[in-house]
Protein backbone atom coordinates (compact mmCIF):
# COMPACT_ATOMS: atom_id res chain seq x y z
CA UNK A 1 0.00 0.00 0.00
CA UNK A 2 2.68 2.48 1.00
CA UNK A 3 4.66 3.68 -1.93
CA UNK A 4 8.29 3.81 -0.76
CA UNK A 5 9.00 6.61 -3.22
CA UNK A 6 6.33 8.71 -1.58
CA UNK A 7 7.81 8.06 1.82
CA UNK A 8 11.25 9.07 0.55
CA UNK A 9 9.95 12.29 -0.80
CA UNK A 10 8.30 13.16 2.44
CA UNK A 11 11.43 12.48 4.44
CA UNK A 12 13.42 14.77 2.16
CA UNK A 13 10.77 17.46 2.51
CA UNK A 14 10.90 17.13 6.27
CA UNK A 15 14.69 17.34 6.11
CA UNK A 16 14.51 20.52 4.06
CA UNK A 17 12.20 22.23 6.52
CA UNK A 18 14.31 21.03 9.45
CA UNK A 19 17.44 22.38 7.77
CA UNK A 20 15.81 25.78 7.19
CA UNK A 21 14.76 26.00 10.82
CA UNK A 22 18.27 25.09 11.94
CA UNK A 23 20.14 27.69 9.86
CA UNK A 24 20.29 30.31 12.65
CA UNK A 25 21.71 27.68 14.99
CA UNK A 26 24.36 26.91 12.37
CA UNK A 27 25.41 30.58 12.38
CA UNK A 28 25.76 30.37 16.14
CA UNK A 29 27.22 26.91 16.62
CA UNK A 30 29.88 26.85 13.91
CA UNK A 31 31.75 30.00 15.05
CA UNK A 32 31.25 29.12 18.72
CA UNK A 33 32.49 25.59 18.03
CA UNK A 34 35.52 27.01 16.22
CA UNK A 35 36.21 29.25 19.21
CA UNK A 36 35.97 26.32 21.58
CA UNK A 37 38.17 24.00 19.51
CA UNK A 38 40.73 26.75 19.05
CA UNK A 39 40.84 27.75 22.71
CA UNK A 40 41.04 24.13 23.84
CA UNK A 41 44.03 23.23 21.67
CA UNK A 42 45.68 26.57 22.39
CA UNK A 43 45.51 25.65 26.08
CA UNK A 44 47.81 22.76 25.26
CA UNK A 45 45.36 19.89 25.21
CA UNK A 46 45.06 17.15 22.61
CA UNK A 47 42.70 18.26 19.81
CA UNK A 48 40.77 14.97 19.73
CA UNK A 49 39.57 15.63 23.28
CA UNK A 50 37.88 18.81 22.04
CA UNK A 51 36.00 16.81 19.41
CA UNK A 52 35.16 14.06 21.90
CA UNK A 53 33.73 16.67 24.28
CA UNK A 54 31.58 18.19 21.57
CA UNK A 55 30.25 14.74 20.67
CA UNK A 56 29.48 13.36 24.14
CA UNK A 57 29.13 16.45 26.37
CA UNK A 58 27.56 18.74 23.75
CA UNK A 59 27.03 21.74 25.99
CA UNK A 60 28.80 24.94 25.01
CA UNK A 61 28.76 26.67 28.39
CA UNK A 62 30.04 23.55 30.12
CA UNK A 63 32.80 22.97 27.61
CA UNK A 64 34.15 26.52 27.79
CA UNK A 65 34.04 26.36 31.56
CA UNK A 66 35.82 23.00 31.49
CA UNK A 67 38.90 24.56 29.87
CA UNK A 68 39.26 26.82 32.89
CA UNK A 69 38.67 23.95 35.30
CA UNK A 70 41.29 21.80 33.55
CA UNK A 71 43.87 24.59 33.54
CA UNK A 72 43.30 25.31 37.23
CA UNK A 73 43.60 21.60 38.07
CA UNK A 74 40.14 21.62 39.65
CA UNK A 75 39.34 18.47 41.64
CA UNK A 76 36.80 16.00 40.20
CA UNK A 77 34.21 16.94 42.85
CA UNK A 78 34.32 20.58 41.79
CA UNK A 79 34.03 19.57 38.14
CA UNK A 80 31.05 17.36 38.95
CA UNK A 81 29.17 19.93 41.07
CA UNK A 82 29.80 22.76 38.60
CA UNK A 83 28.59 20.62 35.69
CA UNK A 84 25.47 19.59 37.59
CA UNK A 85 24.51 23.15 38.62
CA UNK A 86 25.24 24.55 35.20
CA UNK A 87 23.05 21.98 33.45
CA UNK A 88 20.11 21.37 35.78
CA UNK A 89 18.09 23.73 33.59
CA UNK A 90 17.92 20.92 31.04
CA UNK A 91 15.60 19.08 33.43
CA UNK A 92 13.12 21.93 33.12
CA UNK A 93 13.34 21.81 29.34
CA UNK A 94 12.45 18.15 29.51
CA UNK A 95 9.44 18.85 31.72
CA UNK A 96 7.73 20.79 28.96
CA UNK A 97 8.61 18.22 26.30
CA UNK A 98 7.47 15.02 28.03
CA UNK A 99 4.22 14.85 26.12
CA UNK A 100 5.66 15.93 22.79
CA UNK A 101 8.25 13.16 23.08
CA UNK A 102 5.89 10.57 24.53
CA UNK A 103 5.03 8.64 21.37
CA UNK A 104 8.36 8.87 19.61
CA UNK A 105 9.98 5.50 18.98
CA UNK A 106 13.69 4.67 18.47
CA UNK A 107 15.18 8.15 18.39
CA UNK A 108 13.73 9.39 21.68
CA UNK A 109 16.91 8.69 23.73
CA UNK A 110 18.96 10.63 21.17
CA UNK A 111 16.50 13.55 21.23
CA UNK A 112 16.79 13.71 25.02
CA UNK A 113 20.58 13.48 24.90
CA UNK A 114 20.86 16.22 22.27
CA UNK A 115 18.56 18.68 24.07
CA UNK A 116 20.64 21.85 24.17
CA UNK A 117 19.25 25.37 24.80
CA UNK A 118 19.01 26.05 21.08
CA UNK A 119 17.52 22.69 20.10
CA UNK A 120 14.99 23.01 22.89
CA UNK A 121 14.11 26.49 21.69
CA UNK A 122 13.44 25.19 18.17
CA UNK A 123 11.50 22.10 19.23
CA UNK A 124 9.37 23.91 21.81
CA UNK A 125 8.48 26.73 19.42
CA UNK A 126 7.52 24.53 16.54
CA UNK A 127 3.94 24.11 15.47
CA UNK A 128 3.00 20.57 16.33
CA UNK A 129 4.01 18.49 13.31
CA UNK A 130 1.87 15.52 12.39
CA UNK A 131 2.37 12.54 14.61
CA UNK A 132 3.90 10.50 11.78
CA UNK A 133 6.51 13.02 10.73
CA UNK A 134 7.25 14.38 14.19
CA UNK A 135 9.97 11.88 15.06
CA UNK A 136 11.89 12.55 11.84
CA UNK A 137 11.43 16.30 12.14
CA UNK A 138 12.74 16.43 15.69
CA UNK A 139 15.53 14.00 14.87
CA UNK A 140 16.83 16.00 11.88
CA UNK A 141 16.85 19.24 13.82
CA UNK A 142 18.65 17.66 16.77
CA UNK A 143 21.16 15.89 14.56
CA UNK A 144 21.89 18.93 12.36
CA UNK A 145 22.52 21.13 15.40
CA UNK A 146 24.79 18.47 16.89
CA UNK A 147 26.70 18.25 13.60
CA UNK A 148 27.16 22.04 13.44
CA UNK A 149 28.67 22.01 16.90
CA UNK A 150 31.03 19.07 16.23
CA UNK A 151 32.03 20.44 12.80
CA UNK A 152 32.81 23.85 14.27
CA UNK A 153 34.88 22.26 17.02
CA UNK A 154 36.80 20.14 14.53
CA UNK A 155 37.51 23.18 12.36
CA UNK A 156 38.66 25.19 15.34
CA UNK A 157 40.80 22.40 16.73
CA UNK A 158 42.49 21.55 13.42
CA UNK A 159 42.79 24.67 11.30
CA UNK A 160 42.03 27.40 13.81
CA UNK A 161 45.56 28.71 13.50
CA UNK A 162 45.40 29.03 9.72
CA UNK A 163 41.98 30.65 9.39
CA UNK A 164 42.09 34.41 9.46
CA UNK A 165 38.34 35.08 9.09
CA UNK A 166 37.05 37.54 11.66
CA UNK A 167 33.91 35.89 13.02
CA UNK A 168 33.50 38.36 15.87
CA UNK A 169 29.85 39.05 16.53
CA UNK A 170 28.54 36.16 14.45
CA UNK A 171 27.31 34.37 17.56
CA UNK A 172 24.77 37.18 17.90
CA UNK A 173 22.72 34.89 15.63
CA UNK A 174 21.80 32.93 18.76
CA UNK A 175 20.60 36.06 20.58
CA UNK A 176 18.62 37.01 17.46
CA UNK A 177 17.15 33.50 17.30
CA UNK A 178 15.95 33.72 20.90
CA UNK A 179 14.47 37.18 20.27
CA UNK A 180 12.49 35.80 17.33
CA UNK A 181 11.34 32.88 19.46
CA UNK A 182 10.17 35.24 22.23
CA UNK A 183 7.97 37.01 19.64
CA UNK A 184 6.69 33.68 18.32
CA UNK A 185 5.94 32.49 21.85
CA UNK A 186 3.99 35.65 22.54
CA UNK A 187 1.89 35.13 19.43
CA UNK A 188 1.21 31.60 20.62
CA UNK A 189 0.32 32.07 24.29
CA UNK A 190 -1.22 35.58 24.12
CA UNK A 191 -0.41 36.15 27.75
CA UNK A 192 2.13 38.47 29.29
CA UNK A 193 2.35 36.53 32.53
CA UNK A 194 5.19 34.09 31.75
CA UNK A 195 7.18 36.98 30.23
CA UNK A 196 6.64 39.22 33.25
CA UNK A 197 7.68 36.44 35.58
CA UNK A 198 10.69 35.77 33.36
CA UNK A 199 11.68 39.43 33.23
CA UNK A 200 11.51 39.83 37.00
CA UNK A 201 13.33 36.54 37.68
CA UNK A 202 15.94 37.37 35.03
CA UNK A 203 16.71 40.87 36.29
CA UNK A 204 16.89 39.70 39.90
CA UNK A 205 19.27 36.89 38.95
CA UNK A 206 21.43 39.12 36.73
CA UNK A 207 21.91 41.40 39.74
CA UNK A 208 22.23 38.88 42.56
CA UNK A 209 23.48 35.59 41.09
CA UNK A 210 26.90 34.71 39.64
CA UNK A 211 26.55 34.84 35.87
CA UNK A 212 27.27 31.14 35.25
CA UNK A 213 24.31 30.19 37.48
CA UNK A 214 22.00 32.97 36.34
CA UNK A 215 20.15 30.78 33.85
CA UNK A 216 19.56 27.89 36.24
CA UNK A 217 18.42 30.03 39.17
CA UNK A 218 16.15 32.21 37.04
CA UNK A 219 14.51 29.23 35.28
CA UNK A 220 14.09 27.43 38.61
CA UNK A 221 12.58 30.42 40.41
CA UNK A 222 10.48 31.33 37.36
CA UNK A 223 9.02 27.81 37.13
CA UNK A 224 8.28 27.73 40.86
CA UNK A 225 6.54 31.12 40.56
CA UNK A 226 4.51 29.83 37.60
CA UNK A 227 3.37 26.85 39.66
CA UNK A 228 2.55 28.97 42.71
CA UNK A 229 0.49 31.43 40.66
CA UNK A 230 -1.38 28.59 39.05
CA UNK A 231 -2.87 27.39 42.33
CA UNK A 232 -4.44 30.74 43.00
CA UNK A 233 -6.49 30.62 39.81
Amino acid at each position, binding site marked *: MIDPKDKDLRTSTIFKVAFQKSIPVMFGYVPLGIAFGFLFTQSGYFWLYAVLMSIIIYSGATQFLAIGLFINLAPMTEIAVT*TLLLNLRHSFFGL*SLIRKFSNIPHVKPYLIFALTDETYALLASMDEPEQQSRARYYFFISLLNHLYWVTGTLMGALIGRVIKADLRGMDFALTAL*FVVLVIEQYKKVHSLRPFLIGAIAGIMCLVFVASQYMLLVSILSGTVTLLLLRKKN
Partner: protein
Amino acid sequence: MSNPDISIAIFLMAFIILFTRFLPFMFFRKKYPTRIFNYLENNIPPLVMLLLVMYCLRNVKWGLSPFGLPEIIGIATVVMLHLWRNNSVLSIVSGTILYMLAVRII
Protein backbone atom coordinates in the same frame (compact mmCIF):
# COMPACT_ATOMS: atom_id res chain seq x y z
CA MET B 1 45.44 18.45 34.40
CA SER B 2 47.11 15.57 32.62
CA ASN B 3 45.65 13.65 29.71
CA PRO B 4 44.30 10.53 31.50
CA ASP B 5 42.68 12.78 34.13
CA ILE B 6 41.07 14.83 31.40
CA SER B 7 39.49 11.82 29.75
CA ILE B 8 38.02 10.78 33.12
CA ALA B 9 36.73 14.32 33.66
CA ILE B 10 35.20 14.41 30.17
CA PHE B 11 33.28 11.18 30.74
CA LEU B 12 32.21 12.34 34.21
CA MET B 13 30.84 15.58 32.76
CA ALA B 14 29.12 13.76 29.90
CA PHE B 15 27.46 11.42 32.40
CA ILE B 16 26.21 14.25 34.64
CA ILE B 17 24.77 16.17 31.69
CA LEU B 18 23.08 13.03 30.41
CA PHE B 19 21.55 12.68 33.88
CA THR B 20 20.18 16.26 33.88
CA ARG B 21 18.67 15.76 30.43
CA PHE B 22 17.08 12.38 31.19
CA LEU B 23 15.89 13.22 34.72
CA PRO B 24 12.35 14.46 33.97
CA PHE B 25 11.76 11.62 31.53
CA MET B 26 12.82 9.02 34.11
CA PHE B 27 10.72 10.68 36.79
CA PHE B 28 7.45 10.76 34.88
CA ARG B 29 7.65 7.54 32.98
CA LYS B 30 4.11 6.28 32.72
CA LYS B 31 1.69 8.59 34.44
CA TYR B 32 1.88 12.30 34.87
CA PRO B 33 -0.63 14.89 36.04
CA THR B 34 -1.97 16.02 32.67
CA ARG B 35 -3.29 19.42 33.69
CA ILE B 36 -0.09 20.59 35.34
CA PHE B 37 1.88 19.40 32.33
CA ASN B 38 -0.42 21.21 29.98
CA TYR B 39 0.21 24.33 31.98
CA LEU B 40 3.99 23.82 32.07
CA GLU B 41 4.09 22.95 28.38
CA ASN B 42 2.54 26.33 27.55
CA ASN B 43 4.30 28.48 30.11
CA ILE B 44 7.87 27.20 30.43
CA PRO B 45 8.84 27.90 26.77
CA PRO B 46 8.02 31.66 26.86
CA LEU B 47 9.70 31.96 30.25
CA VAL B 48 12.83 30.17 29.06
CA MET B 49 13.07 32.00 25.70
CA LEU B 50 13.02 35.38 27.43
CA LEU B 51 15.58 34.23 30.00
CA LEU B 52 17.83 32.94 27.21
CA VAL B 53 17.78 36.39 25.62
CA MET B 54 18.69 37.96 28.95
CA TYR B 55 21.39 35.35 29.48
CA CYS B 56 22.90 36.16 26.07
CA LEU B 57 23.09 39.82 27.14
CA ARG B 58 24.59 39.11 30.57
CA ASN B 59 28.07 40.40 29.67
CA VAL B 60 26.92 43.64 28.06
CA LYS B 61 28.22 46.64 29.99
CA TRP B 62 25.31 49.08 29.79
CA GLY B 63 27.09 51.76 31.78
CA LEU B 64 30.26 51.85 29.69
CA SER B 65 30.82 53.02 26.10
CA PRO B 66 29.31 51.86 23.71
CA PHE B 67 26.47 51.37 26.24
CA GLY B 68 25.23 48.18 24.61
CA LEU B 69 24.45 50.07 21.41
CA PRO B 70 25.38 47.19 19.05
CA GLU B 71 23.06 44.87 21.01
CA ILE B 72 20.23 47.43 20.95
CA ILE B 73 20.67 47.94 17.19
CA GLY B 74 20.77 44.20 16.55
CA ILE B 75 17.72 43.39 18.67
CA ALA B 76 15.69 46.36 17.40
CA THR B 77 16.40 45.23 13.82
CA VAL B 78 15.30 41.68 14.59
CA VAL B 79 12.10 42.78 16.36
CA MET B 80 11.03 45.31 13.73
CA LEU B 81 11.84 43.07 10.77
CA HIS B 82 10.11 40.14 12.39
CA LEU B 83 6.93 42.08 13.18
CA TRP B 84 6.94 43.46 9.65
CA ARG B 85 7.87 40.47 7.46
CA ASN B 86 7.44 37.56 9.89
CA ASN B 87 10.35 35.71 8.28
CA SER B 88 12.67 34.21 10.92
CA VAL B 89 15.72 33.67 8.74
CA LEU B 90 15.49 37.19 7.29
CA SER B 91 15.14 38.76 10.76
CA ILE B 92 18.00 36.76 12.26
CA VAL B 93 20.45 37.17 9.39
CA SER B 94 19.81 40.92 9.01
CA GLY B 95 20.07 41.52 12.76
CA THR B 96 23.31 39.55 12.96
CA ILE B 97 24.91 41.33 9.99
CA LEU B 98 24.00 44.75 11.41
CA TYR B 99 25.36 43.68 14.81
CA MET B 100 28.64 42.48 13.25
CA LEU B 101 28.97 45.83 11.47
CA ALA B 102 28.07 47.72 14.64
CA VAL B 103 30.71 46.06 16.84
CA ARG B 104 33.34 46.96 14.23
CA ILE B 105 32.27 50.57 13.65
CA ILE B 106 31.08 51.75 17.07
